[in-house]
C-alpha cells in the first residue's frame, strides 16, 4: 500500500514535534509522583488516627452488649474450647467465606493455644454466614456436620475451611472440596454427606445466626470478650492478650466476694 497523505503528514509531524509528547509524558509523570507523594503524606495520619481509635472505642466498649445475657443462646452446646466454667469467654462470630475471618483465624488460634492451659478462659465459635457470600452458609453447615462426629472434628474442619478459603471460595465444585476436607480429617464421609443435607447441622447454624442477629452483629469477624466487642483493629495477638488479661484481672478481684463471682458468672451465660 503506498503511503497516503496522512502517513506522510504523520511522519512530518513526528519529526517536527517529537519532543512535545515526551515532554507531556514527563510532565504528567512528575505531576503524578509529586501529587501522589503529597497525598500519601496527607493520608498517612489516617492509620495513626485509627490506631488511636481503639483506645477511644475501648471506653465505649466498656459496657457489654446490653442484651448479651438475654440474647438467644445460639447452638447448644456451643462449639467451645476451654472450660465451660471459665470467667473469660471469647466469642467469635465468623463467616467462613470472609477474608477478614480467615485473616483473624491464625490470631485466634494462637490466642487459644496460648490460653489453653488457663481454665479461666474459653473460646466459643459462632457461625454468622453473611448473605453476600454465596458459599458461606454451606461452609458453616459443613463445619457443624463435622462437629456432629465429635467436637475435635468441628475444630479440624473449621481450620480446614479457613486455611483453604482461597481454594473453595472460588471453586464451583466447593462441595466436593468439603468432602475432601472431611476425608482428610478422618470423618465418616457418608455420614458427613448425610449431615450436610440434614436438619441438625443447619439448625445449629441457624441458632447461631439468630444469636448474632439479636446481638446486632453487622460484620464478621466480630469478637467479643465477655460480651464486649473487641474492635477489629484490636483483634491481633497483642490486642487480644491485652483485653483477655484485663478481663482475667477484673474477674480475679471480685472473685474474693462470692456474690460478685456469681454475678460475673451469670453475665457470661
Amino acid at each position, binding site marked *: 500500500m503506498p503511503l497516503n497523505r496522512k502517513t506522510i*503528514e*504523520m511522519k512530518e*509531524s513526528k519529526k*517536527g*514535534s517529537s519532543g512535545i509528547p515526551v515532554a507531556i*509524558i514527563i510532565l504528567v509523570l512528575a505531576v503524578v509522583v509529586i501529587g501522589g507523594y503529597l497525598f500519601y503524606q496527607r493520608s498517612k495520619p489516617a492509620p495513626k488516627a485509627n490506631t488511636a481509635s481503639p483506645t477511644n472505642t475501648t471506653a465505649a466498649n466498656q459496657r457489654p452488649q446490653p442484651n448479651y445475657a438475654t440474647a438467644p443462646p445460639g447452638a447448644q452446646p456451643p462449639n467451645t474450647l476451654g472450660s465451660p466454667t471459665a470467667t473469660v469467654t471469647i466469642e467469635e462470630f465468623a463467616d467462613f467465606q*470472609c*477474608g477478614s475471618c480467615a485473616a483473624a483465624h491464625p490470631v485466634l488460634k494462637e490466642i487459644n493455644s496460648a490460653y489453653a492451659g488457663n481454665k479461666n478462659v474459653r473460646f466459643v465459635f459462632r457461625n454468622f454466614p453473611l448473605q*453476600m457470600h454465596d458459599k458461606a452458609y454451606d461452609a458453616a453447615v459443613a463445619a457443624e456436620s463435622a462437629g456432629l462426629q465429635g467436637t475435635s472434628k468441628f475444630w479440624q474442619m473449621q481450620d480446614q475451611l479457613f486455611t483453604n478459603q482461597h481454594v473453595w*471460595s472460588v471453586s464451583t465444585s466447593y462441595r466436593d472440596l468439603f468432602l475432601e476436607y472431611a476425608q482428610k480429617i478422618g470423618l465418616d464421609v457418608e455420614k458427613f454427606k448425610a449431615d450436610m443435607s440434614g436438619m441438625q447441622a443447619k439448625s445449629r447454624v441457624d441458632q447461631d445466626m439468630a444469636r448474632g442477629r439479636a446481638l446486632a452483629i453487622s460484620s464478621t469477624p466480630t469478637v467479643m470478650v465477655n460480651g464486649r466487642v473487641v474492635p477489629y483493629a484490636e483483634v491481633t495477638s497483642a490486642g487480644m492478650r491485652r483485653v483477655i488479661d484485663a478481663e482475667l484481672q477484673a474477674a480475679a478481684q471480685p472473685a474474693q466476694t462470692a456474690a460478685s463471682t456469681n454475678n460475673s458468672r451469670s453475665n457470661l451465660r
Partner: protein
Amino acid sequence: MSDEEVQPGGSDGIAWIPVLAAIVAAIGLADSVYLTIHHLTAVPVPCSIISGCETVLTSQYAEIGGIPLAAFGALAYFLAFSFAILAAFGNRTMWTVFGLQVTLMAIFTAWLIYLQAFVIGAFCQFCLLSALTTFTLFSLFVVSKLRRSGKLH
C-alpha cells in the same frame, strides 16, 4: 463533516481519538494512584453487611505478591497514557501497542468485576471508575479501528 474532523492525524497532525484516550488514561492514572495510596494507608476492615471500598481493597485479591493491584493499574494507565500521547503526535505503532495493552487491561478488568460481584461480594466505587476508564480506552481503540477500516473501503 464530522467525519473530516474525526480522521486520525488531521491537518495539525494530532488525532482526536488518541488525545481523548490520553485524557481518559490520565483519569485512570489519577484514580489508580488514589487507590494505591488508599490501599497502602487503609486499615483492614471486617466483612460487613454494608460493604464497600475497604472490603475490596483489603481483600486478598487486592495484592499480587505484596504489591497493591492498584499500583499495577497506575503503571498500566501511565503506559497507556504515554502510548496515547505518542500516537496523538503521529506515532502509529504506539497506537497499536496501546490497543494491545488496553485489550489486556479490559480482560483483566472483567475478571476484577467478576471478583467484586461474586467472590468478594462488595463493590468499590473507585475500582468501578477504573473499570469504566479501561473499557472507555478499549472502546476508543475499537472505534478508531472501525473508523479506519470504514474509511479505507
